[in-house]
């Protein structure tokens, strides 16, 4: 009886092992026949190529491992910005879809239908080659906010120059911990004594006040480096100083955000519509205000519907960021599975590492979102 249960499992396992074994053997045999060796030693050798945009210190004298890290961080950067922007925009557009105002409602649906139904790669090309290319050359760019320039070669903004940034950063962390415990205390107090503390105002003043204090007594200081134009030749210019955000990053973030927003907006709309009208009316009938109804009754229930499919969209956005290779944004695929693979010829190793990396990122996001989903799920008592 027990064997009958286990046998199919065992056979499946055996089948998987055999398939994997066959592919490994096959790869080994063919690589051996062509005099190729399998190994990760190349990661420690000098990369010898430069990368346009990097969050950490990097140049061609660093190793392939470092180049991998640069690519990974660039991928995470675009995914991080994209997810945050798409979530905010998605929430707004999703609510706008249900607006009683005809114009707002129709604009939101038009936006969703338009951007959702055009292939993402096409949108990336559009933003990079059509939209951003219409930007002015450096010497013709108007100054924005008295400090920045949006040009064909990217966005140039003032760069912050910190003294004792570590003190400032530690204080922010401390402020966040204090707020966390304060919020817990306030909730307990409300449950026990029915008194409500002004949590938001106190939290905000801690969050802003504590770091500000470091400027006065912690020796923290902040100054700005402004971009200054310099002529390189009769027709070309560059900016010295300041911070440069490459047009590739801007185009990719724009395209990913606008595309993913449509799906998140639909999730939000579905989530809100999924809550019965009775809930809203019942909440109103016990005297809750309009915003309390949304915050205390509708949203907690709607989130349970919204979160799982939105997790999928976060994963999609992260994986879609690999289309960066098309427009020269140096993400993991372009730097590592592109240049590094070509220079070393280690196709199997590098594709393996890249696949494992994306898998890890995706599983990490899923784990985080599942944890959040569990937290807001109905807790049966």
């Amino acid at each position, binding site marked *: 009886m027990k064997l009958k249960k286990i046998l199919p499992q065992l056979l499946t396992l055996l089948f998987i092992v055999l398939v994997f074994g066959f592919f490994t053997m096959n790869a080994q045999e*063919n*690589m051996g*026949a*062509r*005099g*190729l060796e399998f190994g990760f030693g190349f990661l420690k050798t000098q990369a*010898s*190529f*430069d*990368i*346009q945009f990097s969050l950490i210190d990097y140049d*061609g004298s660093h190793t392939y491992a470092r180049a991998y890290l640069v690519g990974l961080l660039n991928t995470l950067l675009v995914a991080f910005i994209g997810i945050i922007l798409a979530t905010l925009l998605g929430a707004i557009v999703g609510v706008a879809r249900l607006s009683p105002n005809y114009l707002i409602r129709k604009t939101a649906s038009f936006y969703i239908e338009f951007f959702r139904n055009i292939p993402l790669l096409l949108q990336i090309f559009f933003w990079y*080659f059509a939209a951003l*290319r219409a930007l002015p*050359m450096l010497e013709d760019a108007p100054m924005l906010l008295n400090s920045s320039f949006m040009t*064909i*070669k990217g966005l140039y903004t003032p760069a912050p120059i910190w003294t004792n940034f570590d003190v400032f950063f530690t204080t922010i962390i401390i402020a966040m911990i204090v707020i966390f415990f304060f919020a817990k205390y306030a909730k307990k107090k409300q449950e026990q004594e029915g008194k409500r503390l002004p949590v938001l105002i106190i939290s905000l003043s801690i969050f802003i006040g504590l770091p500000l204090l470091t400027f006065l007594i912690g020796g923290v200081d902040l100054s700005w480096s402004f971009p200054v134009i*310099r002529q*390189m*030749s*009769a*027709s*070309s210019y*560059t*900016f*010295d100083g300041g911070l440069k955000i490459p*047009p*590739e990053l801007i185009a990719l973030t724009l395209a990913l955000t606008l595309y993913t927003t449509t799906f998140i907006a639909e999730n939000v709309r579905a989530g809100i519509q999924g809550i019965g009208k009775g809930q809203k009316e019942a909440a109103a009938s016990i005297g809750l205000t309009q915003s309390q109804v949304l915050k205390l009754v509708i949203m907690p229930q709607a989130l349970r519907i919204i979160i799982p499919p939105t997790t999928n969209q976060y994963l999609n956005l992260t994986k879609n960021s690999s289309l960066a*290779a*098309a*427009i*020269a944004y*140096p993400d993991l695929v*372009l730097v590592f599975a*592109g*240049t590094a*693979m*070509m*220079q*070393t*010829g280690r*196709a199997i190793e590098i594709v393996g590492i890249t696949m494992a990396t994306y898998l890890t990122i995706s599983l990490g996001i899923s784990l985080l979102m599942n944890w959040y989903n569990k937290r807001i799920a109905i807790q049966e008592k």
Partner: protein
Amino acid sequence: MFKYLKQLTSLVAVVAVLFAFTTESMAAKKSKTLKNTQKKGFVRCGVSQGLPGFSNADAAGNWTGLDVDVCRAVAAAVLGDANKVKFTPLSAKERFTALTSGEIDILSRNTTWTLSRDADLGVTFVGVNFYDGQGFMVRKDSGITSTSQFKNGISACTNIGTTTELNMRDFFNSKGISYEPVAFEKADEVVAAYDSGRCDTYTTDKSGLAAQRTKMTNPDDHMVLPETISKEPLGPVVRQGDAVWEDIVRWSLNVMIEAEEYGISSGNADMMKTSENPAIKRLVGTEGELGSYLGLDQDWSLRIIKQVGNYGESYKRNIADTGILPDRGPNNIWTKGGLLYTPPAR
């Protein structure tokens, strides 16, 4: 007794093997790649995704170019028809994997011969069909006429997965100039980005620059700077481990070059059969048994010359007449001051 018997059998075996090698040298020449090619009926050739002069497809899908002609020469030698080639367009990044995985049998895609590629990638370079070097293209209105006028902060557009990226770093580092590398996967996107003003300069092999310049909105607004910053010997590549196939590709290319050296062209090849010069007679197949050494028939080289032409004809047709590089420079026969010098076909 049995001990000796065992030794005797191994001796017989060894002799048999040696005998087999000496008498069946023709059969041994049948390399796996050659056998597969003859069975399929076409040569599988990896080319670029569109580089005028080297490998470019017209609207009807017909491939032409200097690199294309190498594959056509092999098809003429092996299958008797220069048109029996299946072309696979490859990006710089895909090319070696396509070759080592067996998707193609010849990679003829303006590929630079370097030590690390030759020794570490499981491939073998069989020769050089174009001597090139990396250069820079700039806008004429920039007033730049030499790389010595490059300044800190210059942005350079190029392709990923090429020696270009490495040379570029060496060059700017040695000059102490800070630069911004903008590397795309496909050549068309490099051209589009440079053309729109994203980059101050476009760097790749000079032949590539000359060819891509024709794709710009206004080709006359751009110029290639005179400096050459690297050696780029471009040539066909085959998979490691099939020495016979390697020889066939190498000597198909060499025949084209040597035919030009001896003045044999597609037009006069048949008349040359009566030539007094033994070197010419060997090339048109009236003397010697060169084909059999490669596992091919006697007319293999004659077919190359008649169907594809000699190197000079191919250069004229693809590179000179198209206005890409009318001056042959180093890509001329050694007797005319160029670098093309092949071992003798004998």
